[in-house]
């Protein structure tokens, strides 16, 4: 549904995005992750037909972003990261404005506006002035605006930024609902936990380069080298256990705190079993031995660490 091939964008000397390629299938929810200034918004603006690339091509639903922007605009709903609203307009007028700008005929507009307001739980705000809405409401209104022409593709640039925890959860629930409606969604964020639950795949971008892309599981598999084992020990054998762990070739680093050891582990599952049996056979009372599930945050930190430092 979305296809980016060799997209490069230079601003003078500065390279904002460098030879970026990825693909998003129909119905997928693609999380676009990177720290601030990584090139997320540049890529998104390119896909939203707001930016001419230095080189490269992008296609949305088969239409070229470069040569046929109007066709692309018809099939995408775009929500920029930093958007404003018009003064002196009421909520329904705001939606009517965009509905007519998307060439929706009068006879459908009334029903569509009602439905969209209903979907985003804004019906009670219908006659409020838009610039009087709270940040979370404005964010929802902007999402409502991107849905008026029922686009199959949604491009959302940091839809949850600046929201309080409740609004953030609501936004997440909304995006889940949209995913259920079969829309292809490209959503960016620098807050990873937001995306973990409902993204089918993610792409991690840093300094204009795509570091990793694919389903969350496959990325985590790529990070096998960075598994973490947490071991809790009874008694005073912590030092002994540390020595044993440090001697093991599959262990990169050990941190100990009180009776808990955290070890960075690079190896297969068999190595892990061997490690446990070595500890027990050395007479150490192991209270618990488990692999820490790698959170998206940690994945992100590990992947981006090398380049940032």
């Amino acid at each position, binding site marked *: 549904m979305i296809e980016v091939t060799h997209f490069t964008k230079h*601003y003078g000397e500065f390279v904002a995005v460098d030879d970026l390629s990825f693909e998003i299938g129909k119905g997928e929810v693609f999380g676009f992750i990177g720290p601030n200034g990584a090139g997320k918004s*540049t890529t998104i*603006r*390119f896909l*939203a*037909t*707001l*930016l*001419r690339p230095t080189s490269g091509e992008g296609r949305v639903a088969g239409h070229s972003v470069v040569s046929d*922007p*109007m066709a692309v*605009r*018809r099939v*995408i709903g*775009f929500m*920029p990261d*930093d*958007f*404003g*609203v*018009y*003064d*002196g*307009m009421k909520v329904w*007028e705001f939606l*009517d*404005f*965009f*509905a*007519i*700008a*998307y*060439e929706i*005929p*009068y006879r459908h*507009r*009334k029903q569509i*506006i009602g439905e969209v307001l209903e979907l985003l739980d804004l019906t009670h705000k219908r006659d409020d*002035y838009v*610039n*009087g809405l709270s940040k979370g409401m404005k964010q929802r209104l*902007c999402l409502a*605006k991107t849905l008026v022409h029922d686009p199959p593709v949604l491009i959302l640039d940091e839809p949850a930024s600046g929201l309080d925890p409740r609004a953030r959860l609501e936004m997440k629930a909304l995006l889940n609902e949209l995913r259920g409606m079969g829309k292809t969604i490209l959503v960016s964020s620098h807050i990873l936990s937001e995306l973990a639950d409902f993204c089918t795949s993610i792409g991690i971008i840093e300094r204009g380069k795509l570091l990793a892309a694919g389903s969350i599981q496959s990325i985590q598999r790529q990070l096998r080298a960075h598994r973490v084992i947490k071991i809790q020990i009874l008694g005073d054998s912590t030092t002994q256990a540390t020595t044993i762990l440090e001697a093991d070739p599959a262990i990169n680093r050990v941190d100990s705190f009180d009776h808990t050891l955290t070890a960075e582990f690079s190896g297969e599952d068999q190595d892990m079993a061997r490690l446990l049996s070595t500890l027990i056979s050395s007479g150490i009372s192991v209270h618990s031995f488990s692999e820490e599930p790698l959170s998206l945050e940690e994945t992100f930190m590990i992947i981006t660490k090398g380049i940032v430092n």
Partner: protein
Amino acid sequence: MGRYLMLLRENPVLTRELLVNLRSTRAFVIQFLYVLFLGLVVYFYWPSQGEGSAQVGSGVARRLFDLFFLGQFFLVALVAPAFAAGTITGEKERKTYEMLLASPLRPSQILSGKLLSSMTYLVILIISTLPLMNVCYLLGGIALSEIARAYVVLILAAGTFGLLSVAASSFFSRTSSALVVSYLVILPLAVICLAVTRLNQSDTTAREFLTFMSVAVVPPWCLATWSVLGILINRRLLYPPDVGSEGREVVDEEEELKYAIGVVIDRDLFPDKLFAPAKRTDLMPDGTNPVLEKELRSEIFSQGTLMLRLVIQVSMLLSIPLMAVLLFLKSELAGYYVAYVLTFNLLVGPVFSAGSITQERERNTLSLLLTTLLRPGQIVRAKLVAALRVSTVLTFLLTEQILLAYIMLQELWDRLWTLLVFLLIILVTCLATTTIGLLWSALSRKTSTAMVMTYLTLLLLFAGPLGLRFYLQGFSSVSDQKIAAWTLTSPYSAAFSVPMEPPRSETRTRPRSTGGSVAEVALIPGVPLPVWANFLILYPPACLILYGGTHVAFRRRWWRAGEAT
């Protein structure tokens, strides 16, 4: 006293702004060009050994003095608001206002910092021309005390106009509103000041009156005005009513109208509905240009009706004495009343057009607009039509006085065609101010830049020729026709060139125009026409070209330019 010195010496607001403004190369270059320009003005007037004294008539020094004083007075009246009206609204627009207020700075420090930083550069510009003026003194014909007085008046004017603009800036939330309101308050003050200085200088009583005014009346009045304004702004900064969620920009029109004094805008009635059609109660019909609808029905009142009501009231109030004198008592001066209407449009026109594209950018709505199916042509056209409609209707509200004069005064009945010419000149001027404003709006990144550039362009096109004419008239070798050819771009010259017969003067064979040139110019080769006809021929195609330019600029700069934000 020490406390007041502290306001100046340890004032972070002042230091920051002065550093940013005066340290730039631009500030130096502008000052250099300004002095160079005025130097050239003096140089060409300077009587040379041979034919010089014949070429330049007598009273060169007086003419130069007038030119310098009037020119710089105009400069102060126009530039002071441009610099000062954005000082506090700028903080509001950049959302740094609350931070500034919450800092340990006292309101008086903020105020003095803002005022001084915006006026210092202007005062430096004015003072840097003092040596040139003193050179002119060597030519004789003016007294040293006159020069001193003129500069005192200029500096007082800079302070007063600057403070008025800062006051407007603290009362409104948008720079454009603050700018237009300060212009409208300053305009009558400037006109009165100029009218007083135009008294016959050779008359001793008049001269004594002028001296009395500039030494004994103006300075204390200015100081009084400064104190009152200072206290008002101080209070507004100390207890700001326009911050926080209660002060949010939502303006309830009906609520506001309940407390409105004077003119009330009723969007359902004529003529108000012409510039502010009522809000829709139903969805837009198919085929509507949504941008045009939005501009007319929502944006114009988005900042409340205060600005518009002030504009209408002040302009109407001013028009009454002007109408009495220029239309009814001396109907041959009708051109000057038209000049007032033109000036009104010059000030108000750009407010509605120069911000129309830049504001979309500043409010971050441009990317929303540009990802819809609207074509750039539709957007630009809607912006032009909306701005033109509002500015034209507001301007034409002032023409009913002209209509009244033409109906009531019998001596005007035999030249009814001049009414049509006047109205056409006003209409074409509305078109010009809007188109130029829109072009700058497409070219600039910030509304304030677009505004200032529009005013400068319009000033150069409209008022520049008048100054040039005044200057060139000093050379006996330059023909009337040549001078007239230089003034084609000015609607003022056009209005002044319309022949108006002075009443009861059958002795004159040729109708005299209101102080303008009656010389004919051949803009189209071989067809000599009066200035007004040339003006009317020149502008419509020029505006069309400018509109095309706006379209191209918008397309190239914004339509596919996501990097802009």
